[in-house]
C-alpha cells in the first residue's frame, strides 16, 4: 500500500494495520534523512501548515515544527494564550480565519476531546490531532510503537505495560489502540482511582501491583500524573504514589530479564520515574524524541500526498 486510508489523523482508532506499516516504512526513510549532514528535503515546499495549540506543549510542538521545517513546509504557529480566543472567538471561527490564509494542513492540540473530529467535518484542510483532552494523541502512540519496533524488532506478541495515570491520559488510549492493532499484549497498572472502570473491555489486562506487572512485561511505558486534568484527589499523597508506582533501579535489578523503559515526557524525576532509571541503559526516552520527528515527518508527508492539485 502506498497511501493512507484516511484524510485526517484524528486517532489511531481510525487507522488500520496497513496504515501503521506505511507510516513506519516512510519514517524509516525520514530517519535516514534527519541523520544526514543537511537534514532537509524539499517535498513540501508548496504546502502551508498551521500549528494550532490551544493547550501548552513543548515537545510535541517543537517536534511537529521541526518535522515541518525538515520537509520544507511553510508554517504558522498559533497558541491560544496569545490569541483572539481570549476575546471570545470560537474554534471554528479561529480555524476558518486561518484557512482563509490558504493553509493545507492543520495540526491541532485542544483541551476538549473530540475537537479535531468536530473540525474535520467542517473544513477541507487535513487535520492532525496533536492531543485532544483525555482522548487520543496518535503521533505519540505511533512513535512509541516505532521505538519498540526499532529496539525489539517487532511489536507483535510483545508484553507492553503502561503505568500511571491512565484515566487522564490520551497517550495511554492511543497506545492501547496502536499496540493491539499490531498484535501486542497490553497491561495497565496504577492506582484503582486512576484506571477507568471499563478499561478491561478494550481487551487490556489490569494489574494494581507494579512488582507483579513488571515481571510480565518486555516494555514499560511510564506516564506522568496529569495534575492539570485532575479535579478531585485521586490518591492520598504524591509520596504514597511514588512508593507504590514510582519506577526505581531496584525494581529493574530485581527482574530476571531486561526491559525497555519508555516515557512520553515531560518526566517528573523522583515521581513516576527515578533519576537513575531515566538515565539508565534501559531508558529509550531520548530515542523516542528523535523518532518523534521522523514519525511526524512521515504522517505529514503521507497526508500531504493525498491532496493532489493542478496549477491552472
Amino acid at each position, binding site marked *: 500500500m502506498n497511501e493512507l486510508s484516511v484524510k485526517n489523523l484524528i486517532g489511531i482508532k481510525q487507522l488500520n494495520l496497513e496504515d501503521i506499516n506505511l507510516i513506519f516504512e516512510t519514517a*524509516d526513510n525520514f530517519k535516514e534523512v534527519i541523520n544526514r549532514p543537511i537534514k532537509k*528535503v524539499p517535498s513540501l515546499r508548496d504546502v502551508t501548515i498551521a500549528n494550532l495549540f490551544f493547550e501548552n506543549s513543548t515537545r510535541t510542538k517543537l517536534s511537529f515544527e521541526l518535522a515541518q521545517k525538515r520537509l520544507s513546509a511553510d508554517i504558522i504557529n498559533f497558541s491560544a494564550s496569545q490569541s483572539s480566543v481570549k476575546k471570545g472567538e470560537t474554534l471554528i471561527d479561529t480555524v476558518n480565519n486561518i484557512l482563509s490564509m490558504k493553509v493545507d494542513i492543520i495540526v491541532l492540540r485542544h483541551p476538549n476531546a473530540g475537537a479535531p473530529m468536530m473540525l474535520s467535518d467542517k473544513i477541507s484542510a487535513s487535520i492532525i490531532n496533536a492531543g485532544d483532552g483525555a482522548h487520543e494523541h496518535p503521533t505519540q502512540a505511533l512513535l512509541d510503537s516505532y521505538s519498540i519496533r526499532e529496539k525489539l524488532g517487532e511489536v507483535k506478541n510483545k508484553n507492553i505495560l503502561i503505568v500511571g495515570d491512565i484515566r487522564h491520559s490520551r497517550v495511554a488510549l492511543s497506545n492501547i489502540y496502536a499496540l493491539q492493532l499490531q498484535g501486542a499484549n497490553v497491561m495497565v497498572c496504577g492506582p484503582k482511582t486512576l484506571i477507568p472502570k471499563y478499561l478491561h473491555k478494550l481487551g487490556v489486562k489490569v494489574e494494581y501491583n507494579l512488582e507483579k506487572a513488571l515481571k510480565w512485561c518486555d516494555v514499560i511505558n511510564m506516564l506522568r500524573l496529569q495534575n492539570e486534568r485532575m479535579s478531585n484527589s485521586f490518591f492520598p499523597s504524591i509520596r504514597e504514589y511514588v512508593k507504590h508506582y514510582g519506577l526505581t533501579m531496584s525494581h529493574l535489578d530485581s527482574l530476571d530479564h531486561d526491559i525497555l523503559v519508555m516515557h512520553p515526557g515531560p518526566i517528573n524525576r523522583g515521581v513516576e520515574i527515578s533519576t537513575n532509571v531515566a538515565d539508565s541503559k534501559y531508558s529509550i526516552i531520548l530515542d523516542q524524541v528523535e523518532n518523534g520527528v521522523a514519525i511526524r515527518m512521515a504522517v505529514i508527508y503521507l497526508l500531504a500526498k493525498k491532496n*493532489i492539485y493542478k496549477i491552472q
Partner: protein
Amino acid sequence: MKKSILLNSQELKITIDRLVCQLVENHKNFSNTILVGLQPRGKYLCEKILKILKSDYNIENPNHGLLDITFYRDDFRRSKKILKPSKTNFDLLVENRNVIFIDDVLFTGRSVRAALTAIESFGRPKSIELLILIDRRFSRELPIQPDYKGIQVDVYENQKVLIEWDDSINGNHAYIILTQDNE
C-alpha cells in the same frame, strides 16, 4: 504487450565492460571518486560496475552509496503516481569529491534533476557525472545528458524500456525489453 530484446546478456556484458573501462580511464584508482547508484533501478548497475572494477581492475570497494530521490521529485502532489521511497544507503560526504550518478535508463531527465538536488544534502561535490546504460534519445524534458552511455534508443513515449536483472539464471542474465502498452 510486445516485447523485443534490445541487448541480450552477452551484448549487455560487453556494454557494461566498456562503460567500466571508460570510468577507469577517467578516474584512475577512484581515490577521489564516489559511485552513486540512483534508487531503485540504478542499484543493480552500480553493483555490476563494482564487481567488474574488483575482478578486472583490482579496484576493491571504491567509495559508493545508494541514493533515493523520492523526496526531491518535482511531481509530488501533482499526480496519483506511486512514489514509494527506497532506502538511501549513503554514509559519505561528497565535499570536493568527484561523483558519478549511475542509473539504468535516462528518459525525461527529471530523476537526475532530483538527484542533483538530493546530493547537496551530503556536501558540495567537485564534479558530477552521469553514467547511463540506455539513453532514450529525443524524450528529454530537461537539459540533461549522460557523460557515459551504453546504447542510445529511439522509442515512442508510450513505450517502456525495462531492464530485467536476474543473476539467478546462468550466473548473469539480463534483458532489455521494449514494451508497447497499447498493442
